């Protein structure tokens, strides 16, 4: 079984649209949306949710005010400024370490579960899918990504699928690392803007750090051909394969509005480029 994650460093370069297009072409795959912060793949996939599971991230401290003597030991020991001078827990700051519970001399503090989100197992017109929703203002998105990764792996084994296609989050931090750890290949979607090039270098650094092979797609390559050339040179000198160059085309937005993948929506130039890229990615995965 092969695993491919689509990432970008910079947000909004077209990860989800490309993941969805690939889903239309994949014959025996399962899918995961690991952008648990701001998941969008379901807007195209229209999943039929089969199973919903609560996700508890880190725990949170809870103070029993009747028992509390306001000795302030917890306040003094908290490294996250999550307890104020009147011994109230600041939900957004608590990282669930349990130090306050430990230092409280009268056992007035207990660590309780916090509802941090939900994870889903769904059926879609392309095949089974694992996804999730982190509640807003919650922590531990990396942990929820790991839950989704485990769910999709189980799905693939149960349904005897030979490929896991993962839509990743933007950035280079915890949720990104959780989305790419142990996969066979990452496809990095970039665009010919100085911002995206800067971010491409950093995300390639992450892939390299974790020893995960990477290939690159230049989306909207025609908005600045000089920059496209720069990306090509950069990739060449670092021995990174460019598997696709997609033109700027409004059908990407139009397809999204019609809740379709670009492959389902239109059979033009863009479609042809996607097919070519899909073949190259598959070739690379089989190596």
């Amino acid at each position, binding site marked *: 079984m092969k695993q491919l994650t689509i990432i*970008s*460093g*910079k*947000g*909004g*370069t077209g990860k*989800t649209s490309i993941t969805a297009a690939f889903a239309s072409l994949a014959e025996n795959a399962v899918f995961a949306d690991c952008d648990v*912060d*701001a998941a*969008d793949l379901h*807007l195209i996939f229209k999943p039929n949710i089969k199973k919903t599971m609560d996700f508890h991230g*880190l*725990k949170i401290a809870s103070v029993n005010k009747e028992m509390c003597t306001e000795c302030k030991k917890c306040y003094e*020991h908290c*490294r*996250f400024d999550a307890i104020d001078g009147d011994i109230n827990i600041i939900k*957004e700051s608590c*990282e*669930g*370490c*349990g*130090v306050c519970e*430990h*230092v409280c001399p009268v056992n007035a503090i207990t660590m309780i579960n916090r509802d941090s989100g939900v994870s889903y197992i769904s059926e879609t017109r392309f095949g089974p899918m694992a996804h999730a929703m*982190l509640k*807003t*203002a*919650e*922590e531990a*998105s*990396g942990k929820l990504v790991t839950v989704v990764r485990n769910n999709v792996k189980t799905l693939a084994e149960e349904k005897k699928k030979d490929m896991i296609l993962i839509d990743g*989050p*933007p*950035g*280079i*931090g*915890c949720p*990104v*690392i959780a989305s790419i750890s142990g996969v066979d290949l990452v496809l990095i979607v970039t*665009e*010919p*803007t*100085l*911002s995206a090039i*800067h*971010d491409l270098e*950093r995300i390639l*650094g*992450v892939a390299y*750090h*974790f020893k995960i092979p990477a290939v690159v797609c230049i989306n909207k390559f025609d*908005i*600045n051909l000089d*920059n496209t050339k720069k990306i090509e040179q950069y990739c060449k000198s670092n021995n990174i394969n460019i598997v696709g160059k997609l033109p700027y085309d*409004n059908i990407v*937005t139009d397809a*999204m*509005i019609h*809740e379709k993948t670009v492959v389902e929506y239109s059979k033009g130039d863009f479609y042809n480029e996607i097919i070519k890229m899909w073949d190259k990615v598959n070739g690379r995965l089989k190596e």
Partner: protein
Amino acid sequence: MIISVASGKGGTGKTTVATNLALSIKNIQFIDCDVEEPNANIFFKAEINNSENVSVKIPEIDKEKCDYCGKCSEFCAYNALAVVTSNVLIFPELCHSCGGCELVCPNDAINWKERLIGKVEHGRTKRIDFYQGLLNVGEMQAIPVIKNLKKKVDKSKNVIIDVPPGTSCPVIESISGSDYCILVTEPTPFGLHDLKLAVEVVRHLNIPFGVVINRDGIGNNKVELYCQNENIPIILKIPERKKIAYLYSKGIAIVSESLEWHEMFGLVFNQIQEVVNK
């Protein structure tokens, strides 16, 4: 006054709005809190002349005192320590530096050492006092870098904060304490879906906010309808233009090429000031 510029979805134009706004008003301090992928300085080109390391404290075991009782690993909520027969394994990227292991250790065998995870950089242009944070490649936790950056906030200035995408902890850390939040979106189904999430965040934090629609004209009118229904002011629309995308691709701010846009962003600032001073 602190204005933060955020969006649920990445790539909607946060940095475009934040940098153009900064270049259109006076007395600016700019803080790029997107420490995973900071891009604002591509537009300012401030020369970085000061860099401070950001490090976190992680435990170190004094092998002479440790009797491998396992209390530290039992306590650690992040699985950053594991005790095996006669060794303690430490996983530094997982440690949150809470100090719990030291508290529970019966033998006082835990010391602390600094671990470098990123840096905070400072530079200045003619108009802008600029700060950015950088998380080192391969590191997990953006929060300590953002916390260090936020210490630089100078409330006597007009502070503009460029926020990372998403809705989770790094976003909250970046936005909290702001007087106003600009949410940037695009008029597409993905843009609308993620805007709704961002609205939840700013409402949760009780911060006044308004919406900027970027790439206006590409999708449909559902973002506008949503804002009308929810009584959310749309403070600016930036049309989809090849010229604007091209300038962005080259790292050039729109306002430095167009007086009209310079005035427009000035008006956006006046609107925000009125709301904040009410």
